[in-house]
């Protein structure tokens, strides 16, 4: 009668062992030197069976615009293909993609990665190397070199440059940068030209218009909100985020220019924002503008379309009325004219089925054609091809599109190293702390520099990584 007991124990032990072995063993991806697998140079034969090509992005208007546009236009050439753009909240975007990459199985075929995510995805072997495919299928000379590099190249290029010998892992989907949104009826038709002028105009506007705050910008500690705000001011005041070749942040980010930028942000700009705006991001800034509660605001161009919708605005009952009050301009200059590079590229999941990978490559080739890029611009997208950027389809599609075209030569990106997610979290939390009075500007900047340097230096550390 003791046998069943023994058998039960033995079965349990065997099951546990089997599960452990299944979880540990036979994983080809455990090669430490794994890097991105190569995509074929030419597009393989496409299936004629019904196929759904899945993208993953975060929830915002361009996601819906892409799905509608692709299903309308791409179906004309590939009637059996359906495009599905799956979305997650912005704050979950990185996790949603990389937890699936970690499982070596994705429910998406095309990952729409932020330019800074590329390093992490490439070193982990999560996305296809498109270098040969691009050589054979894409006219690289049709692009501003930096845009092509920013959305696809790894290792990262110098600001404004493209290394033609570097590998490409993605192609541009949506370009973006910050626009300055200003109330023409409150501060005049001419936008401020320098950062100092902008702050003065905001101060005067706030004083003259009770209930309206001088400024509205991203301050939240989620996603890259507060980090991009500081990086923008840092760039304008002549600061640097890091010394890329030497992987040095401490002493570079928190040098005199960096300190001045943090002082300006916390002591001159923050007092002009609405009370309690310390957790604002894209939607909150748009809401403040649409409700007439801000004189000058900064937001991503791709997220600004809703500002002209009379249903969402108290500034007018028609688009023209709203445009009579709102102006869109490139960011003011100060010591430099740098603006933040936003936007995302398309990247093929290494774990997608072969038929879907082939379809994804075909989609990318189709999408990067000159006429399609112009149609994408007309549908509300922001293209990256130079001819599309100069086309009337793009420039006439929205009042902020000229801002983007003018901003392209002024763009600067953050780091796209594998440690990006941790670097941006450190910057976000510390800038957010400084903006909300939890840390002094100097302490916050010094902490960012020290903690980010620790992250870059800790790659060979034994245990405790990530704290």
């Amino acid at each position, binding site marked *: *009668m003791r046998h*069943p007991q023994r*058998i*039960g124990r033995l079965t*349990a032990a065997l*099951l*546990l062992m089997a*599960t*452990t072995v299944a*979880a540990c063993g036979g*994983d080809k*991806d*455990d*090669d*430490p030197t*794994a890097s991105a697998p190569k995509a074929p140079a030419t597009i393989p034969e496409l299936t004629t069976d019904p196929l759904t090509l899945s993208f993953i992005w975060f929830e915002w208007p361009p996601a819906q615009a892409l799905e509608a546009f692709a299903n309308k236009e791409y179906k004309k050439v590939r009637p059996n293909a359906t495009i599905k753009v799956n979305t997650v909240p912005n*704050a979950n975007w*990185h*996790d949603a993609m*990389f*937890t699936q*990459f*970690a499982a070596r199985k994705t429910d998406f075929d095309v990952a729409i990665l932020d330019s800074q995510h590329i390093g*992490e995805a490439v*070193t*982990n*072997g*999560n996305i296809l190397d498109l270098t040969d495919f691009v050589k054979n299928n894409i006219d690289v000379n049709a692009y501003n070199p930096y845009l092509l590099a920013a959305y696809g190249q790894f290792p990262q290029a110098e600001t404004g440059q493209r290394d033609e010998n570097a590998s490409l892992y993605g192609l541009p989907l949506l370009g973006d940068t910050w626009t300055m949104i200003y109330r023409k009826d409150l501060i005049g038709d001419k936008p401020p030209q320098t950062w100092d002028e902008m702050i003065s105009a905001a101060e005067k506007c706030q004083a003259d218009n009770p209930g309206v705050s001088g400024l509205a910008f991203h301050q*939240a*500690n*989620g996603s890259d909100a507060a980090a991009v705000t500081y990086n923008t001011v840092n760039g304008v005041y002549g600061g640097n985020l890091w010394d890329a070749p030497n992987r040095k942040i401490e002493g570079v980010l928190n040098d005199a220019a960096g300190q001045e930028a943090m002082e300006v942000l916390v002591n001159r700009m923050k007092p002009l924002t*609405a*009370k*309690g*705006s*310390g*957790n604002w991001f894209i939607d909150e800034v748009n*809401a*403040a503008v649409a409700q007439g*509660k801000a004189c000058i605001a900064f937001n991503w161009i791709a997220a600004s379309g809703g500002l002209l919708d009379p249903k969402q605005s108290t500034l007018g009952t028609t688009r023209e009325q709203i445009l009579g009050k709102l102006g869109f301009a490139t960011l003011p200059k100060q010591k430099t004219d740098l603006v933040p590079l936003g936007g995302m590229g398309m990247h093929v999941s290494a774990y997608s089925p072969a038929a879907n990978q082939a379809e994804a490559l075909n989609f990318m080739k189709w999408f990067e054609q000159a006429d399609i890029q112009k149609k994408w611009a007309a549908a509300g997208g922001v293209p990256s091809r130079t001819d599309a950027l100069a086309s009337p389809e793009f420039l006439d599609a929205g009042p902020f599109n000229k801002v983007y075209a003018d901003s392209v030569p002024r763009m600067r990106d953050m780091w796209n190293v594998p*440690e990006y*997610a*941790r670097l941006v*979290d450190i910057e976000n*939390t*510390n800038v*957010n*702390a400084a*903006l*909300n*009075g*939890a*840390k002094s500007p100097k302490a916050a900047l010094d902490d960012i520099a020290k903690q980010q340097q620790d*992250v870059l230096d800790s790659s060979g550390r*034994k*245990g*405790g*990584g*990530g*704290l």
Partner: protein
Amino acid sequence: MSDRVSLTTDRPGRAATPKPPAPVRSRRLTDRRLAVAFIAPALLLLLGMSVFPLLWALYLSFTDYSATRGGPANFVGFGNYTAILTSAQVHLRAVTTLVYVVGAVTLQTVLGFTIAYLISRRTRGRGLLTTLFLVPMMLSPVVVGLFWRFMLDAQFGVVNSMLGSLGLGQVEWLTRQRTALISLIVVDTWQWTPFIMLIALAGLTAVPKYLYEAASIDRASEWFRFRTITLPLVWPLLLIAVLFRAIEAFRLFDLVYILTSGGPGVSTETLSFHVYKVAFLGFNTGTASAYGILMVLVVIVLTQLYLRYLNKLKED
């Protein structure tokens, strides 16, 4: 075999009825085996979903494994544990978590017991009142977090609007260091006070009425009755409710994620939120596993101490 079947009865006067033959059962299918077969699915599920992940996490906690980077899991001994226990970042989150747990559970216990006591004294509408009070507990924490985020918004929120109509100034509920943690405690209290109330109500209802009757005959005061009859009898049950709430509060994640994202800065980052960042921002799976194991150990040790106290209370 036939002689075993009794055709007679020892009760005279009643006709003998033959017993139906017992259903044939395989000799291999003993009661023991049958029991094993019945519990096997649940056991397998438990092994697969709880025991194995825990053991696997324990193994990973001694390695430098990263889920996204792949590669071999190199043994680092107690490196992860040492780093966590000596990290100033972890100490900061531990203090935040402690303040939160003590604040939230104390407030919930006082409020929950008070509400239960008041409800228990009512004879009419008790069921309806109890049901109404339970509504917050039935909502998803994410939903609760989202609508409280709107309500506590400094510019557009209803709470500041009400304060304004009373002539009071605006409060930055979620973006100031002091108020952000208080806001989290208030929201958690709003949602989970009903849990304490429900258990306290069960305890109060179970107090024998004759004790109160005897006390009334002795002209005992209300306070005396509460102190010497009600509280001692409800106390053990209340402590179990507090234990459950403390464990829940210790692993708080969802409300922080939705309401403050740990901000301003990291001032509302709890241990669970920090583990999430270690696990999914840098994908330092080994460190995150050690962090999780340490949190489990803390809960187990505290629970054991607590249960011993509870047992001692019972014996007394």
